[in-house]
């Protein structure tokens, strides 16, 4: 079994024994909805990581898309029109990264470090830091109400993630993404056009972040101008914990979903386990280290333990 599933199972059992209150429907519902944006963002960044690149601008992309969604809703765009527009806006931002990385050949960490700052500060310049308020009544939960709205949001997220998981595993384009990340030169020799795939991955990631922005924004009656701060780190952490290789070519959507679940559950679990919440980030850091170093260190550690005996 994958290490991340092992950890998740261990946490689930621990909570069931020590703090069964964690499993109350209300808590689980809250937990799931709180992590919708993180889940979509983590899947988005997984696409980029699979082809051997990185995108640290997704938090800023989310902020820009959230404000766009809010402003359009206030300008009278009907609720059903918001989602496609958000996806298109996100795709546009992702395409900017794609051009910088695959067209201009700027290393992705540098390119997206720059766009991370540009997107966020551009937004601050445009809005003056003001939140989008006075949204129409039909904005929250797409006007579906407090009961059906969350169900719709969560179902849509689940469908998108499932479709992506299937596509990466079973579509020719998905496999080409793995091939590019695994050995970009060999992919070029096969005529797979790695640069185009990298551009596609950044653009698709942007579209996913746009959808995440929209689904996240409709939970509230106002749209903050500083959404998604630190989202990129949470997303990358989840992908890595889920088994994605930062060098590309290895990783799955299912792994990333498990990574998001583990990171998401830890925070709440600490409260239930009466651990000081200030430990949350440190524990997340430890999980990342364990996920990445564990497979490499464990065999030699086991050897030295055997040798010591």
């Amino acid at each position, binding site marked *: 079994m994958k290490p991340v599933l092992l950890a998740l199972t261990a946490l689930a059992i621990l909570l069931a024994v020590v703090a069964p209150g964690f499993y109350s429907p209300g808590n689980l519902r809250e937990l799931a909805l709180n992590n919708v944006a993180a889940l979509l963002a983590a899947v988005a960044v997984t696409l980029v990581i699979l082809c051997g690149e990185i995108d640290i601008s997704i938090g800023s992309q989310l902020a820009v898309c959230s404000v766009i969604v809010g402003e359009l809703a206030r300008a009278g765009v009907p609720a059903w029109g918001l989602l496609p527009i958000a996806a298109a806006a996100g795709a546009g931002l992702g395409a900017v990264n794609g051009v910088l990385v695959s067209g201009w050949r700027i290393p992705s960490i540098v390119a997206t470090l720059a766009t991370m700052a540009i997107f966020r500060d551009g937004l601050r310049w445009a809005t003056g830091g003001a939140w989008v308020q006075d949204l129409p009544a039909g904005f929250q939960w797409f006007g579906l109400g407090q009961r059906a709205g969350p169900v719709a949001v969560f179902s849509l997220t689940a469908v998108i993630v499932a479709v992506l998981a299937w596509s990466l595993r079973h579509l020719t384009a998905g*496999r080409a993404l793995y091939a590019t990340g695994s050995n970009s030169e*060999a992919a070029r020799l096969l005529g797979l056009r790695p640069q185009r795939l990298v551009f596609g991955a950044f653009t698709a990631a942007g579209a996913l972040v746009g959808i995440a922005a929209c689904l996240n924004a409709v939970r509230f009656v106002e749209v903050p101008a500083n959404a998604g701060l630190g989202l990129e780190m949470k997303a990358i952490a989840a992908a890595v914990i889920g088994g994605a290789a930062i060098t590309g070519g*290895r990783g799955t959507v299912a792994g990333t979903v498990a990574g998001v679940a583990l990171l998401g559950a830890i925070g709440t679990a600490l409260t239930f386990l009466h651990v000081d919440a200030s430990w949350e980030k440190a524990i997340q850091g430890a999980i990342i280290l364990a996920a990445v170093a564990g497979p490499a260190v464990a065999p030699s550690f086991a050897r030295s333990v055997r040798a010591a005996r």
Partner: protein
Amino acid sequence: MALLDASSVNKSYGGVTALRDVSFELRGGEVHALVGENGAGKSTLVGIFAGRVPPDSGVISIDGVPVTDHAPSSARAHGVHAIYQQPALFPDLSVAENIALSLESQSPLAPVNWRRRRLQARDLLARAAASIDPERTVSSLSIAEQQLVAIATAVGARARVLILDEPTACLSAPEIDALFALVGELRGQGAGIIYISHKLDELPRIADRVTVLRDGRRVETREMAAAPAAELIRLMVGRELSAIFPKQDVAPGATAVEGRGLGCRRTGLHDVDFTIRAGEILGVAGLIGSGRTALAQTLFGLEPAEAGQILLGGRAVAIDAPATARALGIAYVPEDRGRCGVIGAMSVAENVTLTDLASVSSRGFVNREREDRVAEHSCERLGIKTRGVRAAVSELSGGNQQKVAVAKWLSRGARVMILDEPTQGVDVGAKAEIHRLVSEMAADGLAVMLISSDLPEVLGMSDRVAVMAGGTIVGTMNRGDATPEKILSMSLGGMRQAGTS
């Protein structure tokens, strides 16, 4: 009509000519062997056929139609399939998927048929006589197994022109038999096969014709039956010994460095015995992969010896890291100067003093004036042409960069100097200067190990020549006894012994 026809192909890399006016013809239904020394231009020529390397001029035609678009994909569309020594596979993906990626060309949105991929892989691997589970990840395969996967792929692609670059270098005897059977089968189906190999004794088993390349030119194409191994060797080496190797005669001093039974499992080095006296140049010849660089790496502590002993000035020393080697007075100028020899973005002065910062520093701070003085002295002594000691090394010509790589060791007074392909890719003038420099180092009492694929250089510069093959020294000759033919037949012969085990 020839299946593949190349006429007057030229290619040079930054002033260094790799191919000069080479013409080559491959018929359908033949195995055409391509032989030549290291650097003769074999890999460049097949690289051009495979669309990996664009030619500077010349025409490549397939079935009489000139190829205009030099790209890997168009070569593949013409049925040209190349398999290199290190197969270009996807390490994170399964064997079945690696094979399928080369064979399938479907729209990006088409779903993958995993069952068909598995069956196809199983079938093709069976035809290549490889018992490999198609579900295994390629990164878990040995190089030999990866080679078989690449061959199975070429079979599946129904390649019309198949290029095999040293395919048997890491295969065992039964695997080689299976490969030859498969090559015979493809030939029977009308494919043309270009076969690069250093194992001259296996060529009569498989090749119909043979072309010899030397220094980027085609020397001759013959029927295989009319080309005995001794004749091929003569054609491969027939180079003039020019007068540009000014090795001064030096009365050698005491033994400076000695290796006894050196071995290292990781690099395949085994049972290496040698001595170099002060003031002596030991030339080390051998094919790429024969263990020459591995020996240098062991002496310099990059791949510490697991067996045997290294003696410096008669005293046994343990060299477990480059820092130890450096402290003992061993200097190493590696091949691939761009990657390991110099730091291009740093200045000449910074590079020169890099090996001995302590001598130009006080209390942890580098004294720039002292650094300049040391560097200026080196530039003068070695004739390094630069616009100043603060110029970046990357601005210099290849020959001058190499001199900087040497200078950084001379500035700290080494006792043993290991040079790995010191004149690779430098022009004739710089080459002569480097030879003069090496000769002067020996005259100053350094023990020099000169690793080189350039036989005239080895013969001209060395007091003695050691020939390596299959990870060990297979023979050592005095300068007077060594000939290019002897060296080459020893390298090839030794490889034969090691290859069949």
